[in-house]
């Protein structure tokens, strides 16, 4: 028999084995227990109920006894062979179903028109106009930038809103707020002390290389953002490069130094300003377009850096939103705030 490793319980194989044996219920229970233990807020749903039920228990003895019987039955059922067999059958069926789905989808893809086939249905008048008239109508050498930020700008407005709403959702989930008078709550203190493990301790190699790399990464990201209408790239890719630089800086110099130029206020102001600029600019442009009014935005000479109308400022706006969002994600997952 081979030797078991000391950390075998937390290894993926064991987790899969446990899941296979216990089904989903174990996972649910684990999450519920963990959260109830960890959370400092009173769980008003279950705690209050339990409390009240204890208070007037003599009146509701019968109900409680019935409930206990139910629970006993559930537990007894959970330990029977029948349930284990059922959960195995369940897992088997889901695997079979998944493979059948995969088979059918692969077969469907095999009968679809081939990529780069000149007779494919995708090669129609829509594509033709993008390719032939894209430069003339949008002023962008990079046709993709012209498509996403001019022809189909409404979809892209939606996409940048997706980033914004994702950041807000993570803020709801993870941000730890201070009290009204500005003093930190217990959770925040705990998170900060936890986070000290990740703070760098004047690591010379890391800091030295970050000093060289971060400016280059910033420069490259900004170049990709500003040049989005001329060459492959644009706001989404440039913004994520800039945020990679920011995260590298944070990892090598710590929150204190990064906080000198990037705080929570910076995040909210930058993303607010760029998104509201995007929304207002596009509202104006849509309104003019739909009502047949001239918008008065010059397209410039194709190929020049200041050309293609709104595409350049929109790329900058999208890039700023992406950079801020990625950075705040990192900070929130580390310690619940900046």
């Amino acid at each position, binding site marked *: 028999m081979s030797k078991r490793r000391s950390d075998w319980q937390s290894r993926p194989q064991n987790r899969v084995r446990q899941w296979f044996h216990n089904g989903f219920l174990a996972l*649910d229970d684990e*999450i*519920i*227990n963990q*959260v*109830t233990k960890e*959370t400092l807020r009173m*769980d008003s*749903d*279950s705690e*209050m*109920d339990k409390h*009240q039920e204890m*208070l*007037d228990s003599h*009146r*509701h003895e019968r109900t409680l006894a019935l409930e206990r019987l139910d629970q006993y039955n559930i537990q007894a059922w959970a330990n029977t062979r029948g349930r284990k067999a059922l959960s195995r059958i369940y897992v088997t069926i889901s695997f079979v179903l998944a493979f059948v789905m995969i088979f059918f*989808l692969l077969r*469907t*893809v095999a009968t*679809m*028109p081939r990529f780069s086939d000149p007779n*494919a*249905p995708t*090669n*129609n008048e*829509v594509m033709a*106009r*993008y390719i032939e008239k894209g430069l003339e*109508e949008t002023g962008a050498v990079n046709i993709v930038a012209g498509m996403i930020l*001019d022809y*189909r*700008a*409404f*979809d892209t407005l*939606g*996409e940048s*809103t*997706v980033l*914004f*709403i*994702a950041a*807000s*959702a993570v*803020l*709801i989930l993870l941000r730890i*707020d201070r009290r009204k008078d500005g003093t930190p709550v217990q959770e925040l203190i705990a998170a900060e002390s936890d986070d000290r493990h990740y703070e760098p301790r004047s690591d010379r190699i890391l800091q030295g290389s970050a000093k060289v790399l971060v400016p280059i990464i910033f420069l490259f990201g900004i170049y990709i953002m500003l040049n989005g209408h001329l060459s492959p790239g644009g706001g989404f890719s440039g913004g994520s490069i800039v945020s990679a630089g920011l995260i590298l800086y944070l990892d090598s110099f710590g929150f204190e130094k990064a906080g000198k130029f990037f705080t929570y206020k910076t995040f*909210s102001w930058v993303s*607010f300003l760029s*998104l*509201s600029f995007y*929304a*207002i600019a596009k*509202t104006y442009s*849509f*309104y003019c*377009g*739909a*009502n047949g009014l001239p*918008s008065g935005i010059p397209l410039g000479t194709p190929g020049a850096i200041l050309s293609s109308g709104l595409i350049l400022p929109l790329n900058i706006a999208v890039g700023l939103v992406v950079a801020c969002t990625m950075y705040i994600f990192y900070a929130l997952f580390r310690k619940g705030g900046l």
Partner: protein
Amino acid sequence: MSIVHNFPFFSILLCMAAGIFTSMFKQKLAKWVTFSVVFAVFTLSAFTLALTLRLDASYPFMMGHFPAPWGNEIRIGRLEALMATGFSGVLLLALIAGFHHSPSFVSEQKTNLYCIMVDLALAAILALIYTNDLFTVYVFIEIMTIASCALVVVRQNGHTLVAITRYMIMHLLGSGLLLLGISMLYGITGHLLMQPLNQAVRQIVQTGNYTGPLTVVIALITSALAIKSAMFPFHVWAPDTYAFAPPLSSAILSGLISKAYIFVLIKFFYRVIGMDVIISQNISQFLFICGSSGMILGSVFAISQRDIRKMIAYSSVAQIGYVYMGLGMGSNAGTEAALFQMLVHAVVKSVLFLATYELINVSGDRKRFHYLHGAGYRNVVAGIVFTVASLSMVGFPFTGGFIVKLNLAVSGMAYGGWMRAFVLVALAVSTLLNAVYFLHTVVSIYRRPSQDIVYPSVVKSPWYAMAAMTVSAVVILYLGVGSQPILDIIKEGLKTLI
């Protein structure tokens, strides 16, 4: 083109801008901005409805400088305008009736984030109602999915986290299937705009090229939207999510967001694929069977619940079953009944969740039925509103639910043989089951409370919340008494939806 033609576009952009601006506002201002934006959207939609009633056909609106197959487009008809008006009105009532509970589920510093979610959810609902482009559908479904997750998870305890994990898994599966379906459809037709797509689909059906992928595409998109709107076998995420989310979020989720997915599905059937193809591919029969079994089994599950919120959540599954049964009949009459049910259920379910919360609140935050005895006397308005909404759920005459069941039965009568019998029996059984659990609840909130339970001293709810609930109850009664104009709009609107 008059200024009123621009109103749908204004309302979408207004909601998105409000979401963005709200991120910078403090609690009170954020709340007021959200309220006024929803009110403005309601007014704008009502004007749009008045405009479209004067037009014979729906009109396209160009989102940008480029005409439709190249740029984005929304298309506004009377059905779309009716849905937008109804949904924004319901959201307005729900906000007035439910927002004063916000301190109980969201901390003060995060209230503005909650407002962002409400604004952007409304933006997504409006965009899904009006859009004429399949990719826009996908983008705004993404926004709606994230917004609904955040709406649930503002209250963080074990129950909501488990519920939301399940919700995320199911909804991401749905989004994945939808994206797969849309990209395959683009691959075999070369279009994303709905009218050219329809022509391309007709050509595929005539020539016989790519019919296999077309079937797969229809199956993928239908199942994606069915998962997202909690159709019966895919409903597993729904009960926990609706039951443990904050009451206002449950009202928005089950009342509005699931309906927006179904509206997209109806648009996909009528405008993109064509109902004849759907019927010939047996998709509608599938929906019919799922819907009718959901009607019955959802009610059976609801009967066995001890927590009142879970009971209402399961009844949502049953009510969505009515929509899918109507849609699955494959006739215009059936779809009209389904659309009317969407409106009725949006009003009824949202007010039901909020009234239930008021009843729970006056019973010391306890949810089991035996603690709720006498709750109807402790909060009189909420008790009456709950009773009216329950009667509508059962299908009592003079309420909206009665008209829904009547229309479903009438459109079922158009069929012969086993299908007619099946529709009538399913309706009868599900009405009976609805009566069992809703009337039981109504009776139990008016029963004499036991002497031993100590209830907290009277918890006063603000007058505006009670007024909003009363308005909802009046709307439910109006839908039962004066529903003919709305049914006419739906009938005409369905013709111009294509």
